[in-house]
């Protein structure tokens, strides 16, 4: 839009130049041409302005010849010699203005066919861009689950980790030099730190499991088993003592109560479990 007035102005300058050529000037200063162009523009604009004013003064919207004549008179322009001017001299005709062709965008990177606008989008909206700008094509690579390759991968990973760790240690910890020189340490060896006493690690049991949770036997069932054994042993003692039936009943009652109590507040802790009576031998006997 900024370019438009410039083009008209250029055309006006061209017209002025051809008029000057007609009248016999071969060259002109740039300043003169600018002045004359400006004057011509001012003339046309002023005539238009005055014509419009006269037209509106007489209550019309469309300008007629009379308005233009009045504006000529107002400006002090002698229009009587116009006909003579037209007839006497042959005037150069500038080529008509041509519509500027909007520069076509080079479609160098066009890919695929553009998607037409959806129904809900008005047609005057801009077109969709090239499909590659928004269409996504997922390309998933199938993972290799072949045994050999998996093993190989794992081995490589393991080796890499070891290498990296070694490197890290050799750089952060103290190192031994493989050669007995003070030159740059090309093959650093991780320094061995002897512990005192050296045999201690061998004596410390490391392969035994001391955690109760790691045991295969369920501690709960173990405790119940202990309880049963304990009761059995008690019964055994009682029968041996040949006690009364009444006494046995009360004992049974107490046992049931004891059982229920045991079930209700059972604590999974070997130290809080019921004490184990040395009834193992008795059981074996019975």
């Amino acid at each position, binding site marked *: 839009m900024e370019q438009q007035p410039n083009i008209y102005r250029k055309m006006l300058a061209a017209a002025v130049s051809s008029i000057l050529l007609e*009248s016999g000037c071969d*060259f002109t200063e740039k300043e003169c041409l600018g002045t004359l162009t400006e004057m011509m523009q001012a003339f046309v*604009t002023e005539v*238009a302005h005055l*014509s419009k004013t006269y037209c509106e003064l007489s209550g019309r919207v469309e300008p007629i010849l009379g308005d233009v004549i009045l504006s000529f008179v107002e400006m002090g*322009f002698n229009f009587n010699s116009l006909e003579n001017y037209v007839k006497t001299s042959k005037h150069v005709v500038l080529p008509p203005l041509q519509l500027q062709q909007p520069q076509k965008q080079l479609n160098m990177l066009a890919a695929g066919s553009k998607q037409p606008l959806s129904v809900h989008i008005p047609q005057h909206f801009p077109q969709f861009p090239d499909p590659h700008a928004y269409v996504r094509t997922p390309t998933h690579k199938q993972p290799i689950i072949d045994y050999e390759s998996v093993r190989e991968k794992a081995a490589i990973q393991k080796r890499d980790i070891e290498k990296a760790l070694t490197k890290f240690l050799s750089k952060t910890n103290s190192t031994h030099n493989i050669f007995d020189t003070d030159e740059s340490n090309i093959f650093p060896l991780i320094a061995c730190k002897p512990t005192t006493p050296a045999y201690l690690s061998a004596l410390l049991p490391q392969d035994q499991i001391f955690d109760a949770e790691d045991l295969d036997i369920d501690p709960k069932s173990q405790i119940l088993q202990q309880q049963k054994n304990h009761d059995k042993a008690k019964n055994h003692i009682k029968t041996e003592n040949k006690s009364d039936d009444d006494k046995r009943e009360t004992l049974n009652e107490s046992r049931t109560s004891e059982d229920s109590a045991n079930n209700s507040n059972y604590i999974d802790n070997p130290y809080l479990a019921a004490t184990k009576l040395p009834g193992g031998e008795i059981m074996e006997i019975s």
Partner: protein
Amino acid sequence: MNQDEKMIEDNNMTLGQPLSDFLLQLEDYTPTIPDAVTSYYLRSSGLEPKDPRLVRLISIAAQKFISDIANDALQHCKMRSTNSSSHSGSKSKQGTKDRRFCLTMEDLTPALAEFGITIKKPHYYV
């Protein structure tokens, strides 16, 4: 007073009449200034004539306006050059025949002064 008005009217009639005849001739005449350019400037100041002949009339008027000024300036130029050539002698007589005229502000300023236009360019006019 009344007579004066009548005279003016008569004058207008006599002035306007040939012009309206002339306007009819403009049908197939193309002025130097393209119609599109003139109508652009007309539109920019609010005038939008439906008759293309009006546009042409204004174009021709502008053309004549500039042409008159150019002619005057050229006369000045010629006068100045003949003056200077007479001073320099007969040597440049050969040159006058194929002399080429260059319009300068020196010539344009007095020519415009005759039209009642004083030009004072700003110092930094581009």
